[in-house]
């Protein structure tokens, strides 16, 4: 369902990233309103609104803030801006065009859980976004919106940007905290969860960019308005990233009562002329694929899960009939093999092994028994690692084997890729 844009309302306006523009459009009113309330009231509002984390897991944000141990000082907000899930590019847009919305969300979050410092952990490839954010933070300090005694309330808050250096795994919340502490981005064992033992061993709330950007509108317009924007337990505006074989790829804001069909055929213009839809990845490369007959699924956390996949980071990758599914699995396993942090053996060794097998099948050198081997290795990675990376990495293999086993078999029987697309390299050079 189309809604009046909340998060992306101003992103196309020139100067939308400046403080002057933001202040002229009700900017930081929510922070003022929040500072007039008690911190617990803010947490109650966010809980009542039903805001669910936009990073991928969909965990209720109010509950996360409630879990933060209020007896221990200091506490921290860490904003996860390490947007790295293939197909996801929503946080980039928010930070590039509306950095003050995120800063306001960080400050309100800090006030709610009693933190004085927020770190925005941004991925290394977003250098240009870091520049925008840091300029916005400087502007906010200069106007007394950040720093000591904000708006005369006695509340102090600092916001810092911390740049990563190219590691998908840093998007996992405990790995992100390790990276922020100056170590390799490798996950910690859970529990304890970051709400109790987070960065520097202190209670920490780790929230996604889009999640924090939702907070100011909840403060201004109320929990009831917010939850009424979507189906039950899936309230609020949502950013969808549509990419792949569509006419108009981009970030689209809608309520979670919209269907995949409306997003793909309506907003994104459908697949290109003369092509037909083959499959859809609804939530980033780590989730199972959906088939064309499931396009009328509502794009909410709960409905997509019911359909057998996950909404994840709402990264919808559309694949048309030129896409070879064995090639797709190989492409994604190349990614996971490269990004595995190396801490847990099943994932470190298994992703490399899976990639080697997929590579030989794709080249036409596979055997039928390789298919069972793929399933067996996947079964020994999924659920056997510290973080969800292992499960994510085996999903492209299992989901393509489930729905497109005939393509694997055709590759093996014919000894070649049966669907070489025109967009593939003519003389593969990077094949390794």
């Amino acid at each position, binding site marked *: 369902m189309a809604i009046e844009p909340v998060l992306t309302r101003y992103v*196309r306006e020139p100067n939308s990233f400046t403080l002057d523009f933001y202040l002229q459009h009700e900017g930081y009113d929510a922070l003022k309103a929040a500072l007039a309330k008690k911190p617990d009231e803010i947490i109650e509002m966010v809980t009542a609104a039903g805001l669910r984390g936009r990073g991928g897991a969909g965990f209720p944000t109010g509950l996360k803030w409630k879990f933060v141990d209020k007896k221990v000082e200091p506490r921290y907000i860490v904003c996860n801006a390490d*947007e*790295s899930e*293939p*197909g996801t*590019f929503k946080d*980039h*847009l928010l930070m590039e*065009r509306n950095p003050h919305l995120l800063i306001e969300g960080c400050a309100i979050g800090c006030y709610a859980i009693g933190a004085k410092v927020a770190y925005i952990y941004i*991925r290394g*490839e977003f250098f*240009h*976004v870091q520049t925008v954010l840091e300029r916005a933070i400087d502007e906010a300090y200069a106007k007394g919106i950040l720093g000591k005694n904000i708006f005369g309330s006695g509340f102090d808050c*600092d916001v*810092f940007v*911390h*740049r*990563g*250096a*190219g*590691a*998908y795994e840093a998007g996992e919340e405990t790995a992100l905290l390790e990276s*922020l*502490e*100056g*170590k*390799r*981005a490798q996950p910690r064992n859970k529990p304890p969860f970051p709400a109790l033992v987070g960065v*520097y061993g202190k209670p920490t709330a780790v929230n996604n960019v889009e999640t924090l950007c939702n907070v100011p509108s909840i403060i201004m317009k109320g929990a009831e308005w917010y939850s009424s924007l979507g189906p039950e337990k899936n309230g609020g505006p949502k950013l969808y*990233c549509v*990419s*792949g*074989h569509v006419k*108009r*790829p*981009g*970030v689209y804001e809608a309520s979670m009562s919209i269907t995949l069909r409306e997003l793909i055929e309506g907003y994104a213009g459908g697949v290109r002329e003369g092509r037909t839809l083959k499959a859809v*990845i609804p939530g980033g*490369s780590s989730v199972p694929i959906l088939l064309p007959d499931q396009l009328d699924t509502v794009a909410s956390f709960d409905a997509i899960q019911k359909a057998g996949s996950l909404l994840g980071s709402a990264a919808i*990758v559309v*694949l048309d009939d030129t896409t070879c599914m064995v090639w797709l699995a190989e*492409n*994604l396993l*190349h*990614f996971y093999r*490269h990004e*595995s*942090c*190396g801490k847990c053996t099943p994932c*470190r060794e298994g992703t*490399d092994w899976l990639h080697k097998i997929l590579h030989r099948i794709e080249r036409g050198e596979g055997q039928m028994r390789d298919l069972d081997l793929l399933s067996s290795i996947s079964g020994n990675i999924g659920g056997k690692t510290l973080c969800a990376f292992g499960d994510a990495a085996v999903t492209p293999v299992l989901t393509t084997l489930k729905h497109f086993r005939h393509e694997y078999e055709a590759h093996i029987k014919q000894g070649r890729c049966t669907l070489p*697309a025109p*967009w*593939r*390299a*003519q003389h*593969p*050079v*990077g094949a*390794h």
Partner: protein
Amino acid sequence: MAYGATFHKSSRQLEDEGPAFVYTPENRARFDEIITRYPPDRKRSAVLPALYLAQYQQGYITANAIRHIAELLEITRADVEDVVTYYTMFYTRPVGKFVVNVCRTLSCAINGAERVTEALCGKLGIKPGETDASGTFTLMEVECLGACDRAPAVMVNDAWQECVTPESAGQLIDDLRARGEDALSGCHHVIEKMKAKG
């Protein structure tokens, strides 16, 4: 070893000793400001920004740079080396003036990233992971840059070029030679121009 080509976490390589290294006064001032962002007993947090400063100053990370950073942050050299060898954006060997990173992950790949890489290889006469003879260009294939709606995306040093085609990739190399990083389109600009035209 060529970057990206045969990378594996277990590959062990000692960094070049390199020339003697200390931060320039400007970088030292920047470093001193950065460490105030973290608790006084948690200086180690500044290791990534400290390494970026060293890399911007010298082009790549040497053993001497690692030693300097370790002393400033009061941690061991091994602690710093541990980080350098984990993150893919730090170079332990000299790279070209322009490091051209082509995104190779799904959304870029299905929009022709492989053909962009192929065109760049032909234009520069090198393979991914290599630097051309003049030391001007290093070509790399990287994993998802997060610009999937503007695919295929290319990152040159820290700046982006979007909606690249095999044809425009060759032109990009000529433009970089002539105008440096000013030749790059930056974020979202290309697609907005396309949308404005209808």
